[in-house]
């Protein structure tokens, strides 16, 4: 592997993300001052992996059945007996709170004739198969067999539900179906250290949206792994988003990577043509990352936008406004919180498909996974993780809402102005999937830096597929 330091490879002209961090009005945490991008080559990525049923089957065997993956939020199963169903391709797991301090994951199939034990999450006192009534305790041990006299060949002591490994971090439940997998702690590496300032277990799910997209799961998530597409897909954001100034952090040997996209600053594509006032005004006008119902929209008080004092910047003013708004909403003190943590898109990915955003606003989580065994479709999900007013009880998590394929994200009011932005992303995806089937070019060509996280993803994927 050839490694090059960031300053030896081409970058967008103009201020870098680190330049904006250096100009922050507050001391920036060390984890945001890290900038590293290991060179992983520039070869084309073969098209086959996006469209081939055979590739999908190999992916199930070599990746999904062996890798740590986000299954559900802990807050979704607070009481003993609460369970969620996590499904990936043909595999179905019952994610169950078995004691107040223990969560386990059982294969969701009756050991008698194989019927799925549960077809929806909820709360049960036991797992009773609807077919013949074989029943397991919620800790997976056999409870009873109807007509047990007819099963002298079954040893009740060993007729327990098979299970997957479970780990928790940040309020998320991860599972791994490989009994010999590495511990989650080594798999995630130092990712948790990055989130000590943004604890996600201290958030509740204020919104959970799911939608079937007509594209491979990798095509879906790769649309959210770079800001390069903003210039063409989201031109309305250019006046306040430093798209091409984004920083992409990639280390070959780690399972996570990161983008920091400065916001409240003009795109380099508009360099020299946008005033600070225009940055501020367009930010308010098209701002949409935090749904108004979750109290995270930056909304001006009254009709008048805030002034930018002489010598200040739109970014500093917007951060101050966000600080004041969050102070008022949560009762917490945001005085020491950096501009970056209040404005920037700081997006991590833990391989293969878990996308937690960092920062002090409502955090977004994306997840993309195959839809059954169809390589041409995927399940895409958006979670909003929000704070709640200090001293009040934790709100109940939002239940998943499936947006039908023929309904736009713009029609999901809780997404606010983010809905139309998603629609812009989604509009490309079926045509990428279709284009990859008609192209005569055997592989896709990636940008060396701006698409280096896609490169990193495939670098890791190739390792899993070759094991």
């Amino acid at each position, binding site marked *: 592997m050839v490694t090059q330091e960031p300053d030896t490879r081409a970058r967008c002209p103009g201020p870098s993300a680190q330049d904006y961090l250096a100009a922050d009005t507050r001391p920036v945490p060390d984890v945001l001052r890290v900038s590293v991008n290991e060179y992983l080559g520039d070869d084309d990525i073969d098209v086959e992996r996006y469209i081939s049923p055979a590739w999908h089957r190999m992916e199930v065997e070599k990746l999904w059945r062996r890798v740590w993956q986000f299954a559900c939020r802990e807050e979704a199963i607070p009481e003993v007996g609460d369970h969620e169903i996590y499904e990936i391709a043909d595999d179905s797991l019952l994610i169950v709170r078995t004691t107040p301090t223990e969560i386990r994951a059982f294969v969701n199939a009756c050991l008698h004739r194989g019927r799925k034990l549960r077809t929806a999450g909820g*709360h*049960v006192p*036991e797992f009773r198969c*609807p077919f013949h009534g074989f029943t397991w305790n919620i800790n997976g041990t056999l409870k009873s067999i109807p007509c047990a006299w007819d099963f002298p060949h079954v040893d009740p002591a060993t007729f327990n539900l098979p299970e997957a490994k479970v780990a928790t971090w940040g309020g998320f439940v991860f599972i791994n179906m490989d009994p010999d997998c590495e511990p989650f702690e080594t798999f995630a590496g130092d990712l948790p250290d990055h989130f000590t300032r943004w604890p996600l277990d201290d958030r509740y799910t204020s919104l959970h949206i799911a939608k079937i997209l007509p594209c491979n799961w990798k095509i879906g998530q790769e649309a959210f792994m770079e800001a390069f597409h903003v210039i063409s897909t989201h031109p309305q954001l250019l006046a306040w988003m430093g798209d091409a100034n984004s920083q992409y952090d990639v280390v070959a040997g780690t399972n996570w990577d990161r983008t920091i996209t400065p916001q409240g600053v003009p795109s380099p594509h508009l360099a020299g043509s946008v005033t600070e006032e225009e940055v501020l005004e367009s930010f308010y006008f098209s701002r949409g990352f935090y749904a108004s119902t979750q109290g995270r929209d930056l909304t001006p008080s009254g009709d008048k936008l805030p002034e930018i004092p002489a010598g200040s910047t739109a970014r500093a003013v917007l951060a101050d406004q966000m600080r004041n708004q969050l102070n008022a909403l949560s009762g917490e003190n945001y005085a020491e919180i950096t501009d970056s943590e209040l404005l920037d898109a700081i997006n991590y990915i833990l391989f293969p498909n878990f996308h937690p955003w960092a920062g002090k606003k409502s955090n977004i989580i994306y997840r993309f996974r195959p839809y059954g065994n169809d390589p041409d479709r995927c399940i895409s999900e958006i979670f909003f993780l929000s704070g709640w007013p200090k001293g009040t009880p934790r709100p109940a998590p939002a239940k998943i809402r499936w947006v039908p394929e023929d309904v736009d994200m713009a029609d999901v009011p809780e997404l606010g102005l983010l809905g139309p932005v998603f629609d812009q992303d989604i509009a490309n995806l079926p045509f990428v999937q279709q284009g990859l089937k008609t192209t005569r070019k055997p592989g896709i060509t990636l940008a060396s830096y701006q698409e280096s996280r896609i490169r990193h993803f495939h670098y890791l994927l190739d390792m899993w597929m070759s094991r």
Partner: protein
Amino acid sequence: MDVTLTAQVTVTPSGIVLAVAETETVFAAARRCEYWWPTSCGGLGTCRTCVLRVSDGAEHCGPIGDLEREGLASIGSAADERIRLACQLRVTGPVVVAKRGVRRVEELHGL
């Protein structure tokens, strides 16, 4: 057991009358009064054997929870709110229910 008995449930065709506390289900009241109520899961809400039909006093029946709704759907009765599971049903006033097979526990020995 120290309970405040607030509601009367009449079971037909047996004519059995149960005094049911707001804190317990119809099934639990029957058990407390030493009546057998058909079940195979013991009143946990998973076997659906205790299903009954409310013939009067539906307005005194408590709401249908997720587990009960799932059970009623599995036996094809989700659309008829008069069909309930005794082990999940709470009542706040007089109710008449139809359920065969409810009898005193000691009568079971003769069957």
